[in-house]
């Protein structure tokens, strides 16, 4: 399993549209990707509404856990996506 942390800089947080794009990006990989908010609540990053339900805001540090056959590539791609969009 690969794990990394990321701090959200987008002023609105992980809002609807970037969350949707994130789900799309995650679905391109076979690995399971879990995102944990600062309170330790986790959601499957392939599920848009659950992800939005974490209520992640600007300044929040999130933990991303990637587990599966393509975890190295998936973790790198997701980290790049987060940096660029959130």
């Amino acid at each position: 399993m690969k794990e990394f942390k990321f701090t959200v800089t987008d002023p609105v947080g992980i809002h609807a549209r970037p969350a949707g794009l994130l789900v799309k990006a995650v679905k391109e990989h076979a690995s399971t990707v879990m995102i944990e908010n600062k309170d330790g609540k986790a959601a499957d990053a392939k599920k848009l509404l659950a992800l939005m339900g974490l209520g992640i805001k600007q300044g929040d540090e999130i933990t991303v856990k990637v587990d599966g056959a393509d975890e190295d590539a998936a973790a790198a791609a997701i980290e790049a996506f987060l940096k660029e969009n959130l």
Partner: protein
Amino acid sequence: MQVATGIKIVNGIAIGKLHIFKAPVYEISEAAADPIEELARFEQARLKVQEQQHALYEKALKEAGEDSAGIFEAHEMMLDDDDLIDACKMIMTEQKKSAEYAAKEGFDNVAEMFREMDDPYFQARSADIIDLKNAMLDVLLGNDTDSLQGTEPSILVAEDLAPSETVKLDKSLLLGLVTREGSSNSHTAILARSMNLPTLIQCKSIEDDWEGKFAILDGYNSCLYIEPTQDLIDSLTARRNEDLKKEALLQELKGKTNTTVDGKTIRVFANIGGPADIGAVQQNDAEGVGLFRSEFVYLNSSEDPSEDSQFQAYKRVLETLSPKLVIIRTCDIGADKTIDYMNLDKEENPALGYRAIRICLTRKDFFKRQLRALLRASVYGKLGIMFPMIISLREVRECKEILEECKRELANEGVSYSKDIEIGIMIETPAAALCADELAEEVDFFSLGTNDLTQYTCAIDRQNAKLEPFSDTHHPAVLRLIQMTIEAGHRHGTWVGICGELGADPTLTETFLRMGVDELSVNPKSVLPLRKIIRSVDLSKSQS
């Protein structure tokens, strides 16, 4: 007359009849005979609604732009959410309920989850889910959703509007929008803003018997007048006509060049005081920023602003307006602009005193913080740096040397900056205007600061009202200095603009064009009126 108040989302005035928009009522039968059939109906409706959301995305993209349209793209994705769909399917297969009932329950649960969140942005998303639920129910029940608006142009009054309802509205029948609920975070508010539609939300005292009544929505004062008095009708109609005139001007001139009848084109830029004015630059279609007064970073701070905080402010303006040229004037404090933390001595004669570049050249660390911030921000757009209050060649050379020093430092630190920065000076002292030939050798552009130039040329304190009878804003001496400066600049390939108040004086526009001015930088509101004048001037004929 009745008056209702709310919270304005968009300024502007709408005058017309009220039309009360009634949300559809859904009658749903719970029980279902065949779960397989219900699953199929649900799936069909889901795909249909996704298709509709995509069409709304396209419509919103065209009418209101990418920012507003994005929510419909998110809606499409929400309809693909496994948790949501599985929950609805369970209701049909295990509880043996109808597709309508399953949609209602499944979507309501998600809406409830959002409603209970702490953050107002996420709370407002419950309206998106309800919007999708209603779209599902409309498809499943075969409701006609297109005829809710009436047939004549009206001010629409509603409890609340879902984003899809807002986008579906026929804009040619829509004068304004009033809702009892709604938040300024809602997509309805965002759409209203991007469509520039006079809008009030949180207007609590809406009454059902207003249907069909004549009303005025006054967005400037956040009021809705029902059956207003004649006086009010007259004054608000006049204001509305003024707005319409401005809008017509914008429609007529937006995107056009500032070209005279005989084909000479100049640039019309905007003067701004900070990042908050970026919107005005864009709305008024200015081609760039000819004077960005950097004082705000010093005046809005209780201590000497750091390099980083300055960098952020400059970056924001450059990035947002890129690729437009943004000319940032370095610190111009002193004289009438004083700041506590600078500890400036009280002076007998501050206008002739320790100010602007004179402070910067004697407090080099202070100056370098700003120059480094500017250089770092330069990679985000097209930057011009302008030095104020110049009187001599020595000063210009010194400023440029310090700038080079900052560049070397940044290069050593591995920090990048643009190689394509224009350097210019303000011509606001008679000394600079008279030495313009020498100064022009050193810089890419001149910008005439006519307020100070007039004050220094005529020896008239511009803040002393008693001197009013002696003051002549079109003094021939000032106009001659302007002409000399333009000619000197052109002899050395230096372009010359005007960023003082005279630049926006419509009675001088033709004179400046004849002098050969290359750019006028004015307050954002004057950009289009000035464009209109320039486009009417014919330099091949003698001046009228």
